[in-house]
């Protein structure tokens, strides 16, 4: 067959793949972004059920920047993608909470707000906390100081009360740690800035607003987006360098470079290489969405996000059972300052879950297991926020099995492999990783990883 040669083929139309595609198309590179599924967005997407749209992934967009701010990650990213800030129609959070054991931190966006929160809940720790903020601001996680040591250990150099240490670790772990038990210092620094020093917001319209903007921009620049085009194999030339991809249907696309957002282990599998078991991500989640009869705030719960752990020492690991409802994340999407939900509440609860147990369930038991797990999760949410069950008009839930099916991430590993490849190299010439397995975090981080990979590996690459 007559092959069309691309400058780059991008595997996966998630955040990183779309961003890489936009950058390349913007500079007249011939690029196609491929995805096995019908909807783009990857982990951050949406689906429709019963006439309603349910978001996956996006609870909050981190890296909130006030209008006019130009030097922080979000405005820089939008500039690189040439997407106007207005297009995202960002609404700030109201306030959010961290609840660990009996302690509760209540914070809004920006440094002053989190410092106030700590001064109120842990008055003896405020000087240490301010020193921590200085250390976070001074640390460059991408430079020569890069430090993958234990954040828990580093934090204890500034903070004496272990409960405050856990309060800071819980949201950071839930928002991006691919490693069990331990949060790396570099990851802590990036997420602490993104979540606390900058802050949380949400596009009005949810993830679809962002996805529409990304798609429009990609097509406007001349990039191609092909859905239902799963990559079955990354093809290598006689020197072992990537030369193209073969799609599920057998069609082959030739290209100069392949950028893969499939994940480290998954990408290597596409070239026929199996990875060691310890490279497989083990962390996955169940998430419920309850549509409420009234706004969540009218039902007595005002916080936008609640990050919780009943245990005073937070256990971030694959649970022994189907779900671990002793910790989790609650998101009331209608508690952002503006939203599209009218008089309904939209209330989500996310807890750690065990992919292998969910996958091994016989079909007959799967639905019952979902109901039982949902009950545990919603009861847990009731202890720290609101039990939505008496107020629910519609409900849906996904499990690690759903995540694996729709994203192709082995083990339903939302944050990918614990073995990150920061430079994107996996040992195959002209094949580069983008996305979560470069160690970038959150929606903004994923988009930036796509931008950086497109810049470095294609736009700045010497022409062959």
């Amino acid at each position: 067959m007559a092959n069309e040669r691309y400058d780059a083929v991008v595997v996966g139309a998630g955040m990183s793949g779309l961003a890489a595609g936009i950058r390349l198309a913007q500079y007249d590179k011939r690029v196609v972004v491929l995805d096995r599924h019908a909807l783009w967005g990857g982990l951050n997407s949406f689906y429709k059920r019963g006439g309603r749209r349910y978001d996956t992934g996006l609870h909050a967009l981190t890296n909130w920047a006030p209008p006019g701010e130009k030097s922080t990650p979000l405005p820089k990213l939008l500039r690189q993608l040439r997407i106007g800030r207005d297009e995202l129609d960002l609404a700030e959070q109201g306030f959010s909470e961290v609840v660990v054991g009996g302690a509760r931190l209540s914070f809004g966006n920006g440094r002053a707000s989190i410092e106030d929160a700590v001064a109120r809940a842990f008055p003896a720790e405020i000087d240490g906390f301010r020193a921590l903020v200085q250390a976070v601001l001074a640390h460059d996680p991408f430079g020569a100081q890069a430090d993958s040591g234990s954040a828990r250990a580093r934090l204890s150099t500034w903070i004496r009360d272990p409960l405050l240490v856990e309060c800071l670790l819980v949201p950071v772990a839930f928002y991006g740690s691919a490693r069990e038990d331990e949060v790396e210092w570099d990851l802590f620094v990036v997420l602490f800035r993104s979540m606390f020093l900058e802050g949380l917001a949400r596009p009005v319209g949810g993830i679809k607003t962002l996805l529409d903007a990304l798609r429009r921009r990609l097509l406007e620049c001349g990039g191609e987006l092909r859905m239902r085009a799963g990559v079955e194999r990354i093809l290598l030339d006689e020197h072992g360098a990537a030369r193209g991809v073969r799609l599920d249907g057998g069609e082959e696309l030739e290209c100069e470079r392949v950028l893969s957002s499939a994940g480290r282990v998954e990408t290597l599998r596409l070239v026929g290489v199996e990875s060691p078991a310890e490279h497989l991500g083990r962390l996955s989640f169940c998430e419920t969405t309850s549509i409420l009869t009234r706004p969540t705030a009218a039902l007595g719960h005002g916080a936008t996000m609640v990050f919780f752990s009943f245990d005073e020492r937070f256990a971030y690991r694959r649970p022994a059972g189907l779900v671990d409802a002793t910790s989790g994340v609650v998101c009331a999407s209608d508690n952002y300052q503006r939203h599209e939900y009218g008089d309904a509440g939209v209330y989500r609860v996310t807890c750690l879950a065990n992919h292998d147990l969910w996958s091994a369930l016989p079909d007959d038991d799967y639905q019952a297991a979902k109901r039982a797990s949902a009950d545990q999760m919603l009861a847990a949410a009731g202890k720290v926020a609101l039990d939505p069950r008496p107020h629910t008009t519609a409900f849906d839930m996904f499990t690690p099995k759903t995540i694996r099916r729709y994203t192709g991430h082995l083990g339903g590993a939302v944050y990918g492999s614990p073995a990150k490849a920061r430079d994107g190299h996996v040992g195959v010439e002209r094949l580069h990783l983008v996305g979560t397995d470069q160690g970038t975090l959150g929606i903004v981080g994923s988009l930036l990883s796509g931008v950086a990979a497109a810049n470095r590996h294609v736009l700045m690459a010497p022409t062959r």
Partner: protein
Amino acid sequence: MNREEIILAIKDIIQTIAPDEDLSELKTDVRLRDQIELDSMDFLDIVMELRKRYGVQVPEEDYKELATLDGCVAYLAPHMQGKTLKVGV
């Protein structure tokens, strides 16, 4: 392209990359990044736009020549001869 046209060409590229910057007061002999918010990723974009619009290739080791508008004129003048100014693209 003469000096004024090259400055116009560069300013139009910067305005494309950074639509929220006010370029009306830019001095030609002061580093661009000292006057407006431009980082190394933005300089890459200036170079990419020069290639896209005018077919001018600037190798990475020469990016530093583009630090000021005067520098841009000095470096680009030989490459921009006979090229037509394209603004608002």
